[in-house]
């Protein structure tokens, strides 16, 4: 069982976490949902397309416009409250590394803190515990927030991702986060070159074998772009291929831009695996 704030999910459920950026400069949407009304429209759309979770971000992952904590709260907390009011049962996640932002958004109704920068601010786990919120523990190889990787090397990138995320998860439990409310994320491309992200994908079953539910964030990332030599606008097929492989290996949550396509791929993999019934079977059986 996975408990994300007010909702619980079965171990066989594959969840889509839709990206909703309240930023001017994120790599794919380039500010398309920076305005609050546009971001709310995006939430309505992704919910209609089958998203289980929305992940609200106020700061671009990579280097860019400086956004301090006050500005990040201004972008996210009020918006979370509006989404909560309109969608009482939707799981709301906020992508932040700052404890003070985490506290503000939990008060506004967030269920999940997506600590994509791997415990940079240890206080974030305590905030999750205080508010009975769920927590994502990600692997960054020790990079500070918003830092791109440069010549990073690992003895074994999969081992490193497992060791670091499991350590963060265990620490979160000791500060009071519910064990069934913690996800681990290898964080493709964070502190990793394309070879690393490909190997993480290829060996994701090792991460799943830890028993912690695994979240993957694959959508239109550079490892897909470099693998296929394609710009961000043309990376959907590659993303979906990585999604299918990750689902086969047992990842549980998929952070994505393209919700309907991702939902369809996850449903298909679940059906192949046998954890979901086909919708309607007639061929050869009439």
């Amino acid at each position, binding site marked *: 069982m996975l408990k994300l704030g007010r909702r619980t999910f079965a171990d066989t459920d594959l969840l889509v976490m839709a990206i909703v950026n309240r930023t001017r400069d994120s790599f794919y949407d380039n500010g398309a949902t920076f305005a609050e009304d546009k971001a709310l429209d995006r939430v309505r759309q992704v919910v209609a397309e089958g998203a289980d979770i929305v992940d609200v971000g106020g700061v671009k992952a990579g280097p860019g416009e400086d956004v301090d904590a006050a500005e990040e709260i201004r972008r996210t907390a009020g918006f979370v409250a509006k989404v909560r009011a309109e969608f009482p049962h939707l799981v709301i996640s906020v992508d932040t590394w700052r404890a003070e932002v985490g506290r503000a958004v939990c008060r506004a109704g967030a269920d999940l803190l997506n600590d994509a920068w791997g415990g940079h601010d240890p206080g974030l786990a305590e905030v999750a515990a205080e508010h009975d919120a769920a927590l994502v523990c990600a692997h960054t190889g020790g990079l500070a927030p918003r830092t791109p990787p440069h010549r990073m090397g690992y003895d074994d990138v999969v081992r490193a991702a497992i060791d670091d995320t499991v350590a963060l998860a265990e620490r979160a439990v000791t500060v009071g986060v519910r064990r069934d409310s913690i996800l681990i994320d290898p964080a493709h491309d964070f502190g990793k070159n394309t070879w690393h992200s490909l190997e993480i994908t290829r060996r994701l079953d090792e991460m799943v074998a830890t028993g912690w539910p695994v979240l993957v964030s694959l959508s239109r990332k550079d490892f897909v772009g470099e693998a296929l030599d394609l710009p961000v606008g043309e990376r959907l097929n590659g993303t979906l291929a990585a999604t299918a492989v990750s689902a086969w290996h047992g990842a549980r949550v998929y952070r994505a831009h393209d919700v309907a396509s991702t939902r369809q791929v996850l449903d298909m993999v679940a059906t192949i695996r*046998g954890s979901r*019934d*086909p919708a*309607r*079977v*007639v061929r050869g*059986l*009439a």
Partner: protein
Amino acid sequence: MIRAAAVCPQPPLLFRELAGSQDAAEELRAACHRAVSQVLTATPDVVVVIGGDERTAVWDVALAPAPGGFGGPAGGRRDGLPLSLGVGRRLLEEAGWTGPVELRAVAWDADSAEVVRLGAGLAAHEDDVVLLVLGEGSARRGDKAPGYVDDRAFGYDAETRRALADGHPEGLLRQDPRLAHELMAGGRAAFQVMAAAVRAQGASPRAEVHYSDDPFGVMYAVATWLL
């Protein structure tokens, strides 16, 4: 003595677990349940299930009514009853029947002498018997039908339906085994065994058709004969 008979088709889709989450066969299955429940009100000593198979044989009632080789969520191997008898057994199970059951397969290509012989044997049954007869009309009723289109299918099926609706054994016994084979009409032999039994008993059944349609290009009819 035969008290009643129910006719149901035998598509694997009647095994609910094969149909997927939307259940394209829901209406058909409901009609089968109505028909089986209706004939069971005759409170028989035994239900005799009759269905087509490669050869005429009596089957062991201990075998599970599983879809076997047709797959399903847990995968599947062909190791149980023939499809027709398996569907019949499952329908009885779903109707809550826990009394005695006999399972009799009749060869798809049984000739008229053989169906008459088998029918006479049923009519001579010492117990009060309800028949559950599995079979359907032609599978060649459209572009998307399993056997594509054969225009003769419509006349053939109309005649079968009329005989079922009128409780008219002769109408079923008239059907030509060779034409039935060409039309992929899998119920011909089983229907004729029922018809021969009812005729041998000299009864005039009160007949009702509960369902008659070809949603997937195969003619399905659900009917009851009360004797």
